[in-house]
């Protein structure tokens, strides 16, 4: 148990060091660089005994991770925005091959216009690739989710790659206190990697990546998607196991017990904000302020985004009258993706809640308390468009 104050990116580097991957293949891109620079320091000093491949592009990074994971070792990579877009083709392939590759995405806006600042467009646009997605709010959550993602991906009933997302600059470059558990405890939680999907081994030769004729493709895809659906229970189990073994050390740094969602003062809330990532910190402060003024308001933070935690969201929002979905991404010609997914979920439940979509903080635009207050006002009074942009 070591309490320390570090950048959230370094918290992730610490987590990776303790997870002991066999191969790390990464290409630098702002704002992910701090993570991989720290990791390469570890490797250079011998604190992490891994093969660090200095690849020539993100495409090379994810391909090398594919190859290494197929050979039966734990891998790690990390990227942002344009890098993630360059990996796009291979993301599908890694998931289709059921290889437990684990990645950190430091959320950054997509070009054009070029921007190095934070929004969620990059990872949200990869929601169909078949990767598990989780979003972190604090440095402690970054550390914890990185540990957990390996356990989830490597589970033999999941075998799907995963990405833990954190906001670039607003979280990655922010110093926060967090707690590092002892190595022994980490080893117990995450024992040595044992591959369950196929591996490349001359003693047991296998063919990976065959062609899928129309006669078989759909069934193979079905089994992959079924695994994604089933993973929701396994993610919950891992959350529970983690919460049991790793109690909270620093108050407010993470939920008491991890779950797909975190409800903040939503028990009797009439209006609920829904959001992901570090903006939730700001929203929590706003909620406290509004509560102080007597408003019945709460926050539903999504930790798991893929698979979409339908039950958790349904249960949280079932008695709520107004829902404001705050998002840092938008699908041009449609709405914010989280908004559309929650709408379709609640529609199916024949809910009568009023749901509104607020697009915030694109390209690193600062999201402040007064933004949240205005959002609350508009929601309460039913003012403004269905999809409102908070500039």
């Amino acid at each position, binding site marked *: 148990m070591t309490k320390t104050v570090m950048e959230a990116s370094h918290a992730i580097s610490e987590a990776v060091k303790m997870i002991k991957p066999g191969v790390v293949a990464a290409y630098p891109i702002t704002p992910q660089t701090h993570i991989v620079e720290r990791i390469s320091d570890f490797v250079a000093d011998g604190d992490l005994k891994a093969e660090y491949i200095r690849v020539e592009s993100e495409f090379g990074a994810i391909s090398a991770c594919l190859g290494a994971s197929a050979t039966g070792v734990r891998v790690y990579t990390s990227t942002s925005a344009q890098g993630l877009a360059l990996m796009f083709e291979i993301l599908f392939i890694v998931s289709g091959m059921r290889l437990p590759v684990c990645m950190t995405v430091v959320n950054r806006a997509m070009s054009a216009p070029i921007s190095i600042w934070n929004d969620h467009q990059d990872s949200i646009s990869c929601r169909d690739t078949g990767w598990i997605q989780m979003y972190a709010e604090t440095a402690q959550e970054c550390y914890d989710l990185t540990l957990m993602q390996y356990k989830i991906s490597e589970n033999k009933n999941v075998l799907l790659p995963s990405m833990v997302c954190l906001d670039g600059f607003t979280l990655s470059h922010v110093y926060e206190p967090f707690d590092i558990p002892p190595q022994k405890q980490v080893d117990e939680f995450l024992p040595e990697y044992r591959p369950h999907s196929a591996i490349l081994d001359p003693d047991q030769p296998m063919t990976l*990546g065959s062609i899928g004729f129309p006669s078989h493709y759909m069934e193979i895809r079905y089994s992959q998607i079924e695994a994604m659906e089933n993973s929701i229970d396994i993610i919950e189990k891992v959350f529970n196991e983690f919460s049991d073994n790793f109690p909270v050390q620093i108050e407010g740094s993470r939920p008491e017990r991890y779950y797909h969602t975190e409800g903040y003062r939503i028990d009797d809330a009439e209006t609920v904000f829904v959001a992901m990532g570090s903006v939730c910190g700001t929203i929590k402060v706003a909620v406290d302020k509004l509560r102080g003024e007597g408003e019945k308001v709460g926050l539903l933070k999504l930790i798991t985004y893929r698979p979409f935690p339908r039950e958790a969201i349904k249960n949280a929002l079932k008695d709520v009258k107004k829902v404001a979905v705050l998002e840092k991404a938008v699908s041009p010609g449609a709405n914010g993706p989280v908004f559309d997914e929650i709408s379709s979920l609640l529609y199916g439940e024949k809910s009568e809640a009023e749901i509104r979509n607020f697009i915030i903080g694109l390209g690193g635009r600062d999201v402040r308390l007064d933004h949240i207050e205005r959002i609350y006002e508009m929601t309460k009074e039913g003012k403004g468009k269905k999809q409102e942009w908070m500039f």
Partner: protein
Amino acid sequence: MGLPEDEFFACGHRACAGCGAATAVRLITKAAGKNSILVESTGCIEVVSTPYPETSWKIPWIHGAFENPASIASGISAALKTKGLEDKVNVIALGGDGSTYDIGLQFISGAFERGHDFTYVCLSPETELILSDGSIVEIGELIDQHIEKSMLIEVIRSNSNKLSASSLISRLGDVESVSMTEKTLSWDGKSFSPMTTLRAQRKESPEELIKVTTSSGSVISLTPEHRVIVDSIVGFEWKEAKNLNPGDEVYAPRKIYIDVDNEPYIIDFLDEDINLILPEKTKEKIKSRLREKYGTIKNASIKIGFKYWQFKGGGRNITLSGLKKICQDGCAEWIELRDKIREFSVRGGNNIRFKSVRFDEDLMYLLGLIASDGYLDKRGSIVFINKESQLLSEFKERYSKLFCGRKLSKVDVGGTYYVHVNNPALYMVAKNLKIKSDPKEIIKLPEPLISAFLRGFFDGDGHCSILHHKHTNEARIILTTTHNVLAKRLRLMLQRLGIASFQDSRAHRSDIIVLSREDIQGFIDKVGSNHPKKIIEMKRVRNLFDKQNPRGKYFSLAPRVCGVILREICKKHNIPITRVDRKRDICTLAAGKRRATKRRIREYIDKLKEFVSDDPLFEELELLLKEDFYLDPIKKIERVHCKSKYVYDITVPETHVFVPEGAFVISNCYDNEAYMNTGIQRSGATPYGASTTTSPSGKLSIGKLEWKKDILHILAAHGSPYVASASIGYPIDAFRKIRKAIETKGPTFINILCPCPTGWRFSSEKTIEIAKLAVETGVAPLYEIINGKHSINRPRDIDKLKPVEEYLKLQGRYKHLFRPEKKEKDIDFIQSRIKENLKLLMEMAEKGF
């Protein structure tokens, strides 16, 4: 055909009939072997080989995407490294035209830039090399010296501890490599000769070595992957040491060649403190030069470091060490002097005068007698003991010839004669030549002198006898010693004379035995004897050889492939086998069920020549029947723990492979040219790139205005140690190159031309023909770039190039060049560009680039 038989790419795949790429994949997987992982790009092969739920692969195989096999391969090799398997598993990335030249070039570039560890095949340090001047050195010592010396030079040059890229010595991974100028015995597939070594390598030794003992007594310890030539029905094949079995026949040289330029002098074997008796004139000349330079002799003696009274005269004489120092100082010429000095004295005793300054037959014979039946006693005299009075007279006669005026004393004890010789100079020579323990310097002498020594030894401790068996008699010649190393040297001496023998070592005895008829005949002719009884025995053996056809097959068996060639000649010229060989033994020979001696094969050839005057196959047979090598069956294979820190290896130029200890032929680190057939699984390092050009974006599509991308030079510029172009029209060459690429440490690249009947539009049976034509017309020349230096394989003669039209007109994709009318201009442009490119390649190769 010399390729391994295991298939890793099963039938039933969906490739077009006549697909060139399928043939290439078979070759590649055979070269890589079972312990490989293949990374495929999207393309024909990937599609045809994995029709889910069936697969054609029998090795681990992964397909990622179109452009990234190189990156995936990087990840795999890194993972193997963490598992400690990087030396045991080959990783090969395969791509087509597009994935290699275009979309995938970025990833190949990255993978090549990163590079990886090296694999080497090596020998244990005590393995001896026979250098071209006859000296025998331990490979470990020699290379260590070179490395130390080179490091010193490098440090002085660069004034730092870092090694620059152009060092004499380079360190790659954990292998240190240094260039050497020594020459050592090597074999180019046709004959043995002393060749220049290129580079020597030293690397940390593995846990285990394989110790190979052959029937003739050669013992060599190799790393398990080191390859050795063994005889097989298809010619000779390379087998890894770890896969050798007792009974496998290795190729051993019957004769060792050295450059006898620097014949040693007697004075080279005298002790440094011996006194030299210089002729007066010579002495005066030296004295005057000393005075010229230093004023007085006393001064000279202080400055140079010899005892000045040595020149004073009056019975006192300059010592050998003193004279050498004077020569070093420049006041005398050693080369001149050693031709003049043959009189010596020791501690004020009488002067000893040799008949000549060099070794001669009498002296060698004497030394041979002393080596066998004599000894050097502690008080400084030589003792010779024998019962045979004739030998005694020989000894006395020779001795007086060599040292006229000196006496020897003789004592007769109950029929055994003891001869005492008080001759300190001769004593020194015998001692320093180590004639009783390790006379390796004798190997450097010319053949007649070696014969004389052996004759002496044989007369003392040798036997010539005939053993009577039921149906036949067998002759043998034996030299007996008690000393293992002495026996080894005697065997080497016999090898200098072109006589094969085998060493039979037991607890207290080491015998050298000559068994085969040719070798015994050789011994009788070249060595002979002066011992009356032994002369009679030799005569009897001669008579025996004249009378009967000895059955003995020792060391005279012909390589197995001779039978196959004989049969082929018969078939080719429609000669019924019974005309040549009534018993049809040729058929059983060709099937590998029987063996024949070289003599027997020659008999068949003579018979055949009555019917066939000329055929190139006869030439091939002649090579195989050459007496300068013999087949030596392996007696014992053991796994031994490697005790030393390093193992060593050397490289001789391109077409040669070297022969350690004159024992048998093993592979270089860098393998090469045609004759070499193949072996079995190989462990390599990572990563690799191998490319097949199958897709119809093609080599020369005249629709395009750009010439083909020069991928080989692009990747050579990345510093790849080995890139090569190959063609399935020359499968053995392609196989060899793939093997070499796998063996070479670092990222390597092979571009294999695979014609595609569907895409290039030609009839499916012409695939191989077109692949050959591509090379013969210069469209796809076969060449290698080895560590940045070009080596052109084919075509060799730019004037004998087939016209490119022959290649173009066979393919449908060029038909627009011929119909409706022939586009002479375009065809000429192609032809001239091809010639230009080829000329450039050849120039680069010639000039050493």
